[in-house]
């Protein structure tokens, strides 16, 4: 099959790159103490929060941007970014939400009006820097579940925020996490009380709309003993020629017997085929299995962003705790992804599973970077890792950098890796049965991703499949 045809088949069009014209309060570009105090004041934050931000900022000034990732990009002008943008006149209720914002979310397929929503999914929507609307709050309150914007949580639940924020990703963890600690604008907070199984899927949708703004959201999820929650995150941005920075921090804490399932469908604007525009996605996500028998599962489908730099990981502290990472990362056009996971085994009989599927097409570069560490006291710890790469065409690349450290002589680590190309013979076989070339490519790719998609909640699996089709098919026909 000629390369031209393949490229055509995989050059998906970014279909949610629209921009909405909304009056916004945006601070001028630049970052100093005043910017941080401005953000803090805008959010009516208590003094302790503002002081934490300033502390992070002074640390950040001493740090250097990391460049060990297998990605390349021009220097980021941190002073050229606007660190806060909010739709004017923040809404008090759904009736007051700017109809244009509601329309924007409708276009994305996320109607905020509760009656129209998918049954059983509560949504927190973050537009640029502020949370616009959280749905189903009352229903969740009945169970004692807290699901609100992080700004609201700072005001209403300071004891929980003080206790858990920075407890998994320390303030000085890395350059981007520290930047986030200084300037984070909004995000989601979830608390599931003891013994509660969250009755619906919780979901946050992030949208960057304003020009030249960064999005720095912060998510904190605490699952108390014997609880369960399934949380989903989605994201998108308008099509623009400029690069935009997204540096989020996500912290998960699972107490004894608790289970957190965290799914991400990441579809930030990827830039064009020459590498112009797109989101720089530098994200720190980490879960702490604090209690015995706790479990944290990360599932991610990454199709967007010009550059992705993220390693959702688990610290398996409680005995018998379980960490899982299922990932599909697609790089096409001129996208670069350096992604993977960290599994840190500290407790006894802890186990982790890593299934990573990288798909590269056109000039996409896909890197898996993983760390599996088994500590000296983690007797009986086990890990299974499987990293598969699929190449479509000849200009793309796949790279794997696994690191395995085992301090316990009885630890058990298993690593499998494969790299394959969509073979002409496979395509021909399907086409000989009357299946179009485009559908044949899609079928082979979906087959490759099957193990990961099967981990997503049903509605999101459907969305992920559709998204993969959009990303890889696009312009044909």
């Amino acid at each position: 099959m000629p390369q031209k045809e393949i490229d055509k088949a995989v050059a998906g069009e970014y279909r949610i790159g629209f921009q909405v014209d909304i009056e916004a309060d945006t601070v001028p570009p630049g970052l100093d103490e005043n910017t941080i105090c401005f953000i803090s004041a805008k959010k009516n934050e208590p003094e302790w929060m503002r002081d934490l931000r300033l502390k992070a900022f002074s640390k950040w000034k001493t740090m250097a941007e990391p460049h060990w990732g297998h990605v390349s990009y021009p220097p980021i002008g941190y002073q050229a970014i606007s660190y806060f943008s909010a739709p004017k006149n923040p809404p008090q209720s759904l009736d007051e939400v700017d109809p244009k914002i509601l329309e924007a979310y409708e276009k994305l397929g996320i109607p905020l009006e509760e009656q129209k929503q998918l049954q059983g999914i509560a949504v927190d929507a973050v537009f640029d820097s502020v949370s616009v609307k959280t749905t189903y709050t009352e229903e969740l309150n009945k169970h004692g579940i807290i699901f609100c914007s992080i700004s609201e949580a700072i005001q209403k639940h300071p004891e929980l925020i003080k206790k858990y924020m920075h407890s998994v990703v320390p303030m000085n963890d890395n350059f981007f996490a520290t930047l986030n600690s200084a300037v984070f604008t909004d995000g989601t907070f979830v608390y599931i009380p003891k013994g509660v199984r969250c009755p619906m899927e919780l979901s946050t949708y992030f949208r960057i709309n304003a020009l030249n703004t960064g999005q720095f959201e912060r998510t904190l999820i605490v699952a108390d003993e014997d609880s369960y929650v399934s949380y989903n995150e989605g994201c998108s941005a308008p099509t623009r020629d400029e690069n935009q920075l997204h540096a989020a921090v996500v912290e998960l804490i699972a107490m004894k017997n608790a289970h957190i399932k965290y799914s991400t469908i990441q579809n930030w604007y990827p830039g064009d085929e020459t590498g112009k525009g797109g989101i720089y996605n530098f994200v720190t996500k980490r879960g702490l299995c604090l209690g015995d028998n706790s479990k944290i599962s990360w599932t991610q489908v990454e199709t967007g962003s010009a550059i992705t730099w993220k390693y959702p990981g688990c610290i398996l502290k409680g005995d018998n705790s379980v960490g899982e990472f299922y990932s599909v990362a697609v790089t096409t056009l001129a996208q670069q992804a350096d992604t993977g996971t960290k599994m840190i085994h500290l407790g006894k009989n802890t186990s982790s599973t890593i299934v990573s599927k990288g798909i590269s097409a056109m000039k996409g570069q896909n890197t898996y970077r993983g760390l599996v560490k088994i500590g000296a006291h983690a007797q009986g710890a086990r890990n299974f890792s499987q990293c598969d790469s699929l190449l479509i065409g000849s200009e793309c690349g796949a790279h794997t950098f696994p690191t395995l450290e085992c301090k316990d002589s009885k630890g058990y680590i298993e690593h499998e890796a494969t790299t394959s190309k969509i073979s002409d013979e496979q395509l021909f076989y399907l086409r000989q049965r009357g299946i179009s070339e485009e559908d044949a490519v899609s079928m082979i790719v979906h087959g490759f991703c099957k193990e990961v998609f099967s981990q997503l909640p049903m509605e999101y699996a459907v969305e992920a499949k559709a998204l993969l089709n959009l990303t890889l098919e696009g312009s044909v026909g």
Partner: protein
Amino acid sequence: MMKIENLKANIGSKEILKGLNLVLEEGKVHAIMGPNGAGKSTLSKAVTGHYEIEITGGDIVYKNRSLLEMSPEERALEGIFLSFQNPVEIPGVNNAYFLRTALNAKRKHEGKKELNAAEFLRLMKEHLESLGMKSDMISRSLNEGFSGGEKKRNEILQMLVLEPDVIILDEIDSGLDIDALRAVSEGINKMKNGKRSFLVITHYSRILDYIKPDYIHVLKEGKIVKTAGPELVAQLEAEGYESIEDENQ
């Protein structure tokens, strides 16, 4: 049904078919026999539009159209089916999902209603039983980890479901034990309806005991050198391909 006229085809820079002529008659079984390297598989690839083949001369006319201008999928939708000699494995692609997609592509092409999952499964159940296939075969990944015999039965299953007009069987008997050979042959014979044409490509005469040919064509050095009735099989068995002279010269 199909007319192959003076067909010349290369693989890479090597000329394999050197002016091949063949007429497939409606409702007839044509066997293509010949020594290794004569171009038997190349012929099946040329008819189906395989990516390795470069056609350098001649034409294949099917339903009053030149096949050469049609994509592989278009040829398939127009009723040309190839049972592959070595069916490729496609991990993670569910066998039933694949086959329903293929069937619905064809039904759509013919202006028929697409089958839903339940209707498709009913259809599937019948065919699986007749081929002696385990029902879990259709929930497995396409050809992945299938034994040689399972792969061939799966090819025949696809043929039964897709109901093609021209059926090309490339070495269908290779790697089959006697039970599998019988099941596969029964499947093929069931497809005979006086309209469908069969092109049976084989090294050995064994399969022809099960699928009775109307014509035997001997393919040597890129050309059909002899066409005769089924009685030719006995001569080939006794004397080999060496004895066959090009009757066109």
